[in-house]
């Protein structure tokens, strides 16, 4: 029979764990709300840029723009978005496993990695992958300039010929309970045809080529921003759900420990009564 003091101590420990996980859940929920507002605000800008580019690209000679030219993909680069911190369920594990599969399929030797978020850097750095760039410790004060810095770093390496093809692997925020791992073709730029096409005949100032030249970097920046926001929202959602589960589990554990405690207490009382009664009976005789 477990002793009463030990059980009481365990209950106390689990109570405090439960308080921590509940607090983390609330913090994650607040951060998730902020992330969702950011996503909401980025949408009109991203949508318009996409729409105009979509309208322009068919008329543009791809070979005249470095960021649009298709080259044989010998060296590949992978941008992998993870979080800095753990305690968010399988958020990082899933994406790391999937990213590793994708990279190995493409050939580890021909792949360069850009890790955004500490977890990815630690994982791939330890396993001998060629991590050319990594970013950490920015998720809390995430703003648009982070996206432009990262986009610029990737583009300038791409233009220098370090790699010929860039894929971004990130967690897309579906809803609070669901994230989906997405692989996105970042460079050279290809657009899916799903965007609303603009049919107006525009006048281009100074010229179509010039407009495209200034649009493409804008598009890359806003895409990077979108990846960061999606991943951030997905991370907070994952943390929220897993901390919620942890809080519930702690509650269940406390319930069962309390049952055990009461049983032990009653057993102790019963034994005591038994002793008193048998002692009294011994005196009668």
């Amino acid at each position, binding site marked *: 029979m477990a002793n009463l003091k030990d059980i009481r101590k365990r209950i106390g420990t689990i109570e405090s764990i439960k308080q921590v996980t509940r607090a983390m859940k609330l913090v994650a929920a607040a951060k998730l709300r902020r992330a969702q507002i950011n996503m909401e*605000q980025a949408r009109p800008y991203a949508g*318009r840029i996409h729409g105009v580019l979509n309208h322009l690209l068919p008329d543009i000679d791809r070979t005249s723009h470095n960021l649009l030219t298709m080259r044989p993909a010998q060296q590949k680069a992978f941008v992998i978005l993870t979080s800095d911190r753990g305690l968010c369920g399988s958020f990082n594990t899933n994406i790391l496993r999937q990213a590793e599969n994708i990279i190995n399929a493409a050939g580890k030797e021909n792949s360069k990695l850009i890790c955004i978020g500490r977890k990815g850097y630690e994982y791939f750095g330890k396993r001998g992958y060629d991590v050319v760039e990594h970013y950490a410790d920015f998720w809390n004060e995430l703003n648009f300039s982070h996206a432009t810095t990262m986009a610029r770093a990737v583009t300038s390496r791409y233009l220098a010929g370090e790699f010929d093809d860039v894929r971004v692997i990130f967690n897309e925020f579906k809803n609070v309970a669901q994230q989906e791992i997405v692989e996105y073709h970042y460079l050279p730029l290809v657009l899916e045809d799903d965007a609303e096409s603009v049919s107006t005949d525009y006048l281009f*100032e100074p010229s179509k080529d*010039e407009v495209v030249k200034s649009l493409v970097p804008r598009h890359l*920046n806003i895409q990077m921003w979108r990846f960061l926001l999606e991943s951030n929202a997905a991370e907070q959602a994952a943390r929220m759900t897993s901390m919620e589960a942890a809080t519930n589990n702690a509650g269940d554990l406390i319930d069962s420990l309390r049952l055990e405690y009461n049983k032990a207490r009653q057993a102790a009382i019963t034994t005591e009564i038994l002793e008193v009664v048998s002692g009294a009976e011994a005196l009668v005789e």
Partner: protein
Amino acid sequence: MAAQFHLEIITPTKVYDEGEVDYLRAPGVDGAFGVLAGHTESIMALAIGEIKVVKGSVEKSYASTKGFAEITRNGVQLLVESAEPQGDIDLNRAQEAFDRAKAHLNQKQDEMEDELRALRALERSMNRLKVAEKK
């Protein structure tokens, strides 16, 4: 009363809906241009500069960075990476950025990339200061 048109300034983090305005002056890459109602439908690349909006007797200025203007029959949308209304510009920050970029340019940098970045930062901060200090 002259004809008006709808103006929106859209950035990745915020949308400024200006409503119906009379006149817009925007910094095109080949120099500033003005837009009145009934402008030809066009798409224009924008440089770092000042966006000026005239609504009745009210004038408003924004410090903006690169982007483009989409002019349609329904109105004008300015898509820029950042736009700050004159009153919201953080003067200290702009001054700091200005000093930093200048210091950076002064110490001979051999890397082209760095120099370009510093130049661009200089341009952005100068623009902010200019717009903020205008009456």
